[in-house]
């Protein structure tokens, strides 16, 4: 009985998991500072690779996803209690900084390391 009930409840979740390629993962993405409209300010580098996270979060948030306790509970709530509570979302987990060389409005030149500018891995939370 429990098994059949479980499969009913879990139906939408399996759709959520989707095919292997749709799993939550890091996608490389590059943009130029010219495209962002910041090339009058930023001298170097010319290209910026922020990357992004996209994909479905699995029904069971396994160890490798680094999901916090809250995400695991929210996943269970979505699954078992109330589907109006959304499942966890696929978002960046680790970031790395980027070094920029800038010209400020007053003509000063600035080297600066900006934290959390490049997504390096993803998590469900």
């Amino acid at each position, binding site marked *: 009985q429990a098994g059949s009930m479980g499969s009913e409840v879990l139906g939408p979740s399996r759709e959520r998991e989707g095919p292997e390629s749709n799993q939550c993962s890091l996608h490389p993405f590059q943009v130029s500072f010219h495209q962002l409209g910041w090339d009058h300010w930023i001298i170097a580098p010319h290209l910026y690779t922020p990357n992004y996270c996209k994909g479905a979060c699995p029904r069971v948030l396994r160890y490798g996803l680094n999901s916090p306790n809250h995400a695991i509970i929210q996943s269970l709530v979505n*699954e078992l209690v109330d589907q109006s509570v959304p499942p966890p979302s696929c978002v960046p987990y680790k970031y790395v900084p980027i070094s920029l060389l*800038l*010209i400020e409005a007053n003509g000063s030149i*600035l080297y*600066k390391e*900006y*934290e959390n500018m490049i997504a390096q891995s993803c998590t469900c939370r």
Partner: protein
Amino acid sequence: KVGQPSIALPAEVPTLPLILELLEEAPAKQQGKPQVLGHPLRYMLELYQRSADAHGHPRENRTIGATMVRLVKPLTNVARPLRGPWHIQTLDFPLRSNRVKYQLVRATVVYRHQLHLSHFNLSCYVEPWVQKSPTNQFPSSGRVSSKPSLLSKAWTEMDITQHIRQRLWNHKGRRVLRLRFVCQQPKDSEVLELRWHGTSSLDTVFLLLYFNDTHKSGQKTKLLPRGLEEFMERDASLLLRRVR
């Protein structure tokens, strides 16, 4: 103000650090890029290339010792009338207001100690500007840097961290570092009226301020105990039945 693309900024914009910084520091798009040429730009490009790779990733082995370096050019450039073989420029460097977030770790003044003007090689040095004190010297910390330098032989980098900290850093309001750039003709040469205006003070003296970000935070998330994670991974359906 920032330029394209126009972003509808929410009312609480000042709480968004990157956007706030863009609003404060970025030149307006329509103004175009401020013109900074010559040695200061070359110096900072080289500093950048040593500290980060072509994609902007900070290098593991970077020796910069700070997360932010600001090159400040002099605001004014007052050249005194010739006095024998001496040529003196008074230079003002504006120091921005203190930001709690950034801690000054080092300040240096970079200048040409050899200047070629009208077929003469001048010997130059920098000293703090103090009214009616012709023999003023930097305190002992104002020594020439022994660190690996990005500079050619004609340039000197002098540490003035203590001078700035003691005299200026904690002042409220507008702060200006005033320095004298002093050059001397060779002793045996004929004293000629050399013209400074052929030499941009920006290209002969600039200030470097090194800062560290004191608000670096690494948000660590406590995970489930490993045993529980493995249990969930191994038999999720069992867990679901138990919860139900």
